[in-house]
């Protein structure tokens, strides 16, 4: 029995700890802020269709990733905090007919400006170092600034046939190979012939992605970029080069903007509704189930704190629908408790001793708790798949809620109830463990 008391003490500590973790500091900010959806904080969402029809199927994934990187870089210009750029692939998993790029700009409301800055298809260019800048330091960390030191050449991504990662056969070091098409071969041969020793910068979307130095004239259109790269760096570079050689045109499919005031009101009313919902459930549990009800309420507090912590740590986006899902899950979370307590009451009704009845109650209720929750989890998974952000928020809060509630309702309730250690059975204990209008019946059973 002792171990349950230790367990209870630990759980109470966890409860207090989580409370402190989630408590916002005095100026209202938290070190670990929640991530709210656009519908609550306001902002802009743009959905683009990506046209990948001119790409080989196996290259699509890499190209889309490179495209995302480019778009992310463009967004950084706005100074939007925590922008989200996601790829949604076509196919059975997403249910989309086309590949999509979803851009979320929290707090940013100028759709026109966003459209303008994001809308163009990225361009890959080769630019040559300007004369008189022989000692250019290519390892300069402020790569953005080096744009000024280059002049454009005729060579662009359209002359690049493909690029791949190659490993040196003797040293095993990775390097990048470039293959130009016949037109590109000519231009490249001329540039390399005239500019040995100079830097031929590779720029994607105006930003340098590699600054190799021309070592010799290359006539066959097959170039290599070598250096002390990690395999990952080489891979990223190749993705970007290929995106430049076979651009993925994007087309705006829909936009959405929500004002911050509207969102703020939705958030506030959601929180107030949540508090009321919680109180109503707590009052009901206390009145109907008495002592076990109190334990259920403590478990529910822990449930709320653990769920909120999970949302916080895993940066789960909280939307208006997500708040609704969470509030719904508070109502459902006590279901496991109710199952257990009803079972407990039945076992007591059959004349079992309290401790035995408790053990049986937990044991027998488990199967139905497990099986019945699976259906909710199935629903949550499908909803996540269906998901626009609003629906995904609902699915996540519901799914997390179901999983966490299984833990809190069973483990937490058991720990606390057994820690209370009722050995003596008397009228008080049977009142405390009775429920609803059953007081008299169970009291009689005990005194028989």
């Amino acid at each position, binding site marked *: 029995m002792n171990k349950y008391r230790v367990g209870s003490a630990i759980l109470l500590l966890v409860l207090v700890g989580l409370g402190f973790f989630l408590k916002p500091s005095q100026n209202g900010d938290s070190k670990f802020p929640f991530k709210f959806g656009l*519908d609550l904080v306001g902002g802009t969402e743009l959905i683009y269709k990506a046209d990948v029809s001119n790409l080989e199927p196996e290259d699509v994934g890499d190209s889309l990733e490179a495209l995302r990187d480019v778009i992310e870089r463009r967004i950084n210009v706005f100074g939007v905090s925590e922008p989200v750029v996601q790829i949604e692939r076509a196919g059975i998993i997403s*249910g*989309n*007919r086309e590949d999509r790029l979803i851009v979320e700009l929290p707090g940013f*409301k100028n*759709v026109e400006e966003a459209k303008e800055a994001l809308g163009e298809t990225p361009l890959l260019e080769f630019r040559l170092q300007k004369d008189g800048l022989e000692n250019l330091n290519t390892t300069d960390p402020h790569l953005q600034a080096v744009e000024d030191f280059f002049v454009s050449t005729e060579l662009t991504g359209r002359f690049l046939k493909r690029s791949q990662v190659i490993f040196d056969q003797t040293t095993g070091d990775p390097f990048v190979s470039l293959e130009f098409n016949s037109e590109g071969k000519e231009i490249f041969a001329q540039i390399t012939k005239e500019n040995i020793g100079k830097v031929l910068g590779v720029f994607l979307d105006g930003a340098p992605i590699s600054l190799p130095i021309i070592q010799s004239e290359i006539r066959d259109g097959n170039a290599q970029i070598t250096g002390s790269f990690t395999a990952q760096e080489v891979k990223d570079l190749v993705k970007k080069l290929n995106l430049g050689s076979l651009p993925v045109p994007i087309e705006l*499919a*829909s*936009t*959405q*903007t929500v*004002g*911050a*005031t509207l969102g703020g009101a*939705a958030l506030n*009313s*959601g929180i*107030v*509704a*949540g508090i009321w*919902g*919680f109180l*109503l*459930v707590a009052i*009901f*549990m206390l009145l109907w189930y008495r002592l076990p009800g109190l334990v259920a309420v403590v478990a529910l507090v822990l449930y709320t704190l653990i769920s909120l912590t999970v949302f916080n740590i895993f940066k789960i986006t909280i939307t*208006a*629908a997500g*708040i*609704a*899902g969470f*509030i*719904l899950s508070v*109502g*459902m979370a*006590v*279901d496991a408790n*109710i*199952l257990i307590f*009803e079972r407990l*009451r*039945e076992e007591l009704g059959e004349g079992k001793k309290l401790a035995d009845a408790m053990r049986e109650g937990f044991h*027998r209720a488990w*199967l*139905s708790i497990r*099986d*019945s929750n*699976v*259906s*909710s989890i*199935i629903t*949550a998974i*499908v*909803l996540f*798949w*269906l998901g*626009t952000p*609003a*629906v995904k928020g609902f*699915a996540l809060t519901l799914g997390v809620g179901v999983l966490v509630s299984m833990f809190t309702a069973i483990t937490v309730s058991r720990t606390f109830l057994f820690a209370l250690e009722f050995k003596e059975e008397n009228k008080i204990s049977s009142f405390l463990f009775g429920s609803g209008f059953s007081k008299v019946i169970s009291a009689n059973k005990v005194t028989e």
Partner: protein
Amino acid sequence: MTIIKYRRIFFSISLFLVLISVFSIFFLKPVLGTDFSGGSILEVSYLSDRPSLDEVKEKLISLSLGNYSLRPSSDSNFILRTREINDEEKTIVVNALSLDGALELSEERFNSIGPVVGASLKSKSYKAISVVVIAIVLFVTFAFRKVSRPVASWKYGVATIIALAHDILVPTGIYIIFGRYFGAEIDLLFVTALLAILGYSVHDTIVVFDRVRERLRINSQLEKNESFDKTVGESLRQTMGRSINTSLTVFLVLIALFFIGSESTRNFTFILITGIVAGTYSSIFLASPLLVTLEKLQKKKF
């Protein structure tokens, strides 16, 4: 057990509600939201004081915008959702919003969701509902695989699927009927609510079925001969308290959400509430009594 005995009455009630719902789905022409139908959203910001909703609506009445919705946003904005309108129509609408040029306003946003995006979301929604129903039925069949007497495990699945159909149709019908008065639309949140109802309702049904399963096992261990009617009836009686109490707690939080929660989730909560009621009803009065009916049908054959 009364419920088992008078099951035909309860089946009739369900059938009646389902028929009304099917009727409303086919004849009342539910309004599709912008999510599914595509459409335009226009947001304007007034430079001076914003006119009242009624003033603007009066101006919009003469335009053939169909089922539009107009709602205030921030302090000085209005958001207008309409069918997909072209640039020409937009100019007319903007003029109406400015009360024929009496008020200065700036166009904050004009956004059209193409019908293609809407259609793709629509087909995805149908798929999602089908996947949930199929997955749940398979799961129920699997979970009750060891129960084969007196009713095969797949029949638990059949009883579940009938209850599920009831739980989708009845809230849909009620939503459509009431939707005519508060302007409810069939949008993505509606589908989300339906799916959540499915999950909840099966959850409820499984708890009763689980008790039937347990009782059958104990009976066979004790070599006790109990009629299936009685087994189901007793299981229902024993789980009744739990069914009602859980539904009550869920109902309580939803009521709080409905009256206090955000405007944007109010319709959503409304469907959830009707769904919880329908789901609780179907678990008690439909799914479990159906098991008995299925058993009786089976007996007749032999």
